[in-house]
Every structure is written in structure tokens, then in C-alpha cells.
């Protein structure tokens, strides 16, 4: 049932996983964007939950979150939206990206239940390091949901511990900074990803600050795939008016599809 752990995802090469935010710019539009990404040929989708204080994210995602919350966005709405996206034909593996406080506020059990209903395959909580995740990990295991772990260049001796718990995939943070598009990546990162891949039992995806086709290719050559967040969220944000317009939304979705295909190509 968990599409992340199925062979199709686990054995794929050059995985490409985009991040979009639920209810950004509206509930309906975000569902349509998810379906568009599937058409564009992505390997999985990170489905973001808007939150008031996204301290691991940069300004692009924070602003998107503010917009999404104005549109009624929340963890509950994100679960509901994905349920609807599944009904409309979304087949790709989906990872719920949320900060821990909304999860605590709703309650671990209820969130797991909601994820199961929405056929969400994994969950990634950037401010829940593995030391704090025991309880949730247990519940996820029982529910067959992957709790995605992050690894950073600074993780050093923690790397082994974390990679051992890897489930679905490992999210390698390609910068010390928060999410957002960046110009250069350190050589050390290549080395560090190679080291990680030696011990990892699941694919290692690189993310944080990847925004161009060249960067995508570069990291696909080093890691087992890439995650693109801010660059896509910004592209969507710039098309907010069009996405909300009956006449222009089709064209906007088409642009999004082309943007992603260009990154993958």
C-alpha cells in the first residue's frame, strides 16, 4: 500500500520529487497542481502543510504559507485535499510535509488515520529530529507509513544512526541554510552523499535550494534523486491570479507542467 516502499519508487533512477503546498493558492488549485505534476511525470510529491512559524523554510515558503492559511489551509485541509486528489486520480507516492506543532495540535493518532484515508505514503517533519520521533515512528510503522528522516552535512556522527532508520527515502539537506534557491553547493556535499549512500538501505534524495535544470542534473548524478521546493512554489505563487481565473487557469497549469518537465529533462 505504501507506494514509497514499492519497487517502482525504490528502484527508479534520477528520481524527481517536487514540493507544493496544500491550499496554495487555494484548496482546489493545489489539488489541480498535484494532478498536473503527476502528468509532468514526477516520481512523488511532497504535500506541504501551511504553518505560522516555518522556521526551517525561507521567505518563499513562509509567504506561501501565509497565503494558504488565508485560503483556509491547515493540516486537516491538507489531508482532506489529498483525499480528494486521490479520488481525482492522483497515483504518485505522496509525502506529507508538516511542522510538528500542527501534528501535535491534531494529535498523532488522528493524523495517521487521516493520512491513511488520504493514502498518503510518508510524512516528513523538519523540526522533529530522530531523538524526538520515537512515538510517532512507532505509530507510522504500525500504519505502514514512512517517516522520512533528514540528514545534514553537519550530521557527522549522527549520520549512521539516522540512515539505519531510513524509511521510504532519506532527505539529504544540500545546504546548511534553510530552504530557498542557492547559487553554489559545496564539494563536501558530494563526498558526504557518497558516504551516506554506502550505508543507506533506501534512496538518498537531495534537497534544499535546488532550482535549476543544471543543479537537478548535478544532484541526480550524485544522489538517488532530487527534491525541488522553493523554486516551484515561487513559480506557482507568481501565477496565483491566473490559477484563480476560470479562463487562465488551464494555461497556468500548463506552464507549471512545462516548468517541471524542463527541470526533469
Amino acid at each position, binding site marked *: 500500500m505504501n507506494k514509497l516502499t514499492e519497487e517502482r519508487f525504490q528502484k527508479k533512477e534520477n528520481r524527481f520529487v517536487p514540493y507544493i503546498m496544500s491550499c496554495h493558492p487555494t484548496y482546489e488549485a493545489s489539488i489541480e497542481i498535484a494532478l498536473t505534476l503527476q502528468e509532468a511525470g514526477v516520481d512523488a510529491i511532497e504535500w506541504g502543510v501551511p504553518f*505560522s*512559524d516555518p522556521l526551517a523554510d525561507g521567505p518563499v515558503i513562509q509567504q506561501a504559507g501565509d497565503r494558504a492559511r488565508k485560503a483556509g489551509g491547515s493540516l486537516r485541509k491538507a489531508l482532506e485535499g489529498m483525499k480528494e486528489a486521490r479520488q481525482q486520480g492522483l497515483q504518485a507516492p505522496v509525502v506529507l510535509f508538516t511542522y*510538528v506543532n500542527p501534528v501535535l495540535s491534531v494529535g498523532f493518532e488522528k493524523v495517521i488515520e487521516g493520512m491513511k484515508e488520504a493514502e498518503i505514503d510518508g510524512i516528513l517533519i523538519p*523540526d522533529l529530529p530522530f*531523538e524526538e520521533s520515537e512515538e510517532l515512528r512507532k505509530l507510522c510503522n504500525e500504519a505502514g507509513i514512512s517517516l522520512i528522516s533528514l*540528514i545534514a552535512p*553537519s550530521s*557527522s556522527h549522527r549520520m549512521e544512526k539516522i540512515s539505519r532508520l531510513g524509511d521510504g527515502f532519506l532527505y539529504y539537506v544540500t545546504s*546548511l541554510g534553510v530552504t530557498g534557491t542557492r547559487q553554489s553547493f559545496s564539494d563536501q556535499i558530494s563526498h558526504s552523499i557518497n558516504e551516506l549512500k554506502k550505508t543507506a538501505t533506501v534512496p538518498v534524495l537531495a534537497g534544499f535550494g535546488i532550482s535549476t535544470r543544471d543543479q537537478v542534473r548535478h544532484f541526480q548524478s550524485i544522489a538517488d534523486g532530487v527534491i525541488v521546493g522553493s523554486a516551484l512554489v515561487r513559480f506557482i505563487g507568481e501565477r496565483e491570479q491566473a490559477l484563480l481565473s476560470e479562463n487562465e487557469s488551464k494555461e497556468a497549469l500548463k506552464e507549471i507542467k512545462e516548468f517541471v518537465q524542463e527541470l526533469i529533462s
Partner: protein
Amino acid sequence: GRFGPFGGKYVPETLMFALEELEKAYESIRHDEEFARQLHKELKEYSGRPTALTHAERLSDHYGGATIYLKREDLNHTGAHKINNALAQGLLAKKMGKTQIIAETGAGQHGVASATVAARFGMSCKVFMGAEDIRRQELNVFRMRLLGAEVIEVHSGGKTLKDATNEAIRHWVANVHDTFYLIGSVVGPHPYPMMVRDFQSIIGEESKKQMNERIGKLPDEIVACVGGGSNAMGMFYPFINDDVKLTGIEAAGKGTETPEHAATLTKGRKGVLHGSLSYLLQDEDGNIIEPYSISAGLDYPGIGPEHAHLRDIGRVKYEAVTDDEAMAALQDLCQFEGILPAIETAHALAYVKQNAQRMSKDQVLLVCLSGRGDKDVHTIQQVLGGDNQ
């Protein structure tokens, strides 16, 4: 890293390394005599510790009950207890070889303390401050710049303390190798709440010694205001195992029955903000609610995790007083003792005003006078202007 269920290290993996490094560094100096000697020297010879313990005789008579004593943290260099912790963390940062200090600030007091310490120890300093707070606290911004700090304007969210903290954390993530994040209260991920508590415990330790010297016994009750909660935690901690009633006072703003307050323990739910699990003001979706208090230093949506624990186990009692009650108590202290307290502190004094008469003259009520009110004169003038002109 836990106080009962509270506390923890809810931060991105990118920061875990820095927190482990900090924890290790803190453990290495925690019982180090040389560090203790250096810190004691700075506290004494630079900040002017020990701070005085003042018998408020006229205020006691006026309220007609308990004998009131004031622990005078307002007499510290820069005018509040904040410097105790800033000096200690600054010294630790220097020992760890960090060259840059970052800090978040709301009203500017912790920013000034951090900038002060950076200047004293020769480190560079960036202070993150919400654009809205920068507008309201123009003079403190100028003070920080005068001290050589760079004040970084934060435009995200409500553009106040909470957002400045987010931004400071983000900057830390990106610059973790040379940067020390100097957190100003008993909040944030482990080891901060424990470390800041320990660094502020000098308030309670000195009080205990001074009380014994002056009246040969401990006070019957101790009162302190609580925003993040560092002055209260530093005052309470050394008395935790003693037979002393401990009371923390939150800001009820315009009333806990209104949406405009900062009474986290009274009205909050458990949640995670800025790296630790505690009580929070949040909506039903888990988004943080902007708090309100006339006091910029109490207007924080969270509270130190150890306070949450002490409340839940019943060791410390927490109450909330309104803006108006605080301002009335502030005027009393001015007129009966010649001391202008910070509006934060005035919240603790409002509790005293309401409760001193329930105690007898041979009972002692000790108040942590956390800071001076010079910084608040403009606000006080706006509120009381009509009455006092």
C-alpha cells in the same frame, strides 16, 4: 533535556550538530572553576553584582500586610536581569571560539544586553528584530547600533518577537560554524532552558544568602513576572526544595476573557515553538497566535518548558494580571519607594498589591524586581499622560 514531558530539541537536523556542540561545551564549563571565576568577575566588576536587596518599608505599610523585599535586578548594568545570562553565554561563546553572536529581541532589552556583551568581549553581533518592534523601540535600536551591533529588520509574519526568533534560527542554521545563538530566556531547544536557568540562578542564590543575612530566614513567598520566564526561573530555582511559596505572574493584557492577552499557562495548550515543547497560545490548527501585553517583554506566545512542568506538578502557582493592574502597581512603587520598575516587573507588583494584605507583617514577600522602567517611560506616558500632567 526534559522537564517532565516538556522541553526537548525540536529543531531541524541542520541544527542538531550545533546543539550537541553547545551541550558538550556547556557541560564542560558547568562545573569548571576557571569559567566560574571569570564569570563571577564579570558579574561583579562589570555588571555590579551582587544586586541590592531592598526593604520596601513604605510600600509594605501602604499595602498593610506582608513585609515586602525587592531583589534589585534593575541595578544591573543595562538595567535588567538579562545581562546575567548574556555575560555567561558570551563567555561560553568566546570559549567555544565563536566570533559572531546573534540574538533575537522584542522590546530591545535582550538585544541591548547581547550587543553589550559582544562589545565587551570583542565579538561581532547581529540582532534580529521585527520591523514593527523596530518602529516602536527606535531608541533601543539606536542603542544597539551605538554598541556596534547590526540590527536586522524582520518582515515576516507579524513582524514582532516570534518572527525575529524564527529569523534568528534561520540565520543560525546557515552560519552554524562561527555563530553563537544567544537566547535571552529559558526557552528554545535543550540545552538553552537549562543553561539560561543556571545562568540566571544567581538571582535566587544571592537572594537566599541576603535574606538569611538580613532577617535570618527565608521569605514566605516569592513573586516574579513570567514572559519567557528567565527572571522567575532564576529566582525560583534555588528555592525549589525549600518551604517557600512560589508565584509566577503572566500578562493578562486586556483580560484573559478577551483575545488580547499573553497568559500562556492560563490559556495555552501544549505545543512546540522555537524548539521546545511547552504551553503555547495557538489556534485549533496549531498555528501560533500573536499575544498581546502592554509589556513588550511579556508579550511572547510561549513559556519556558520548566515553568510548564512546575505548574503541572503544582510546585509553582501562576496567575495573570491585566495591563491596568500592572500600571497601578507601577505607580505605587514610584510614589512609595522612588523606584520606577519595568512594566514587566509591575505585573509581579500588581500581585503584591492584591495579596500583601492577606499576609501578616511577620511574613515576608520577596519580589524579583527584574528591570528598571526607564525604557518604558514613553509607554507609561501614553497610558497615564492625562492623569499625571
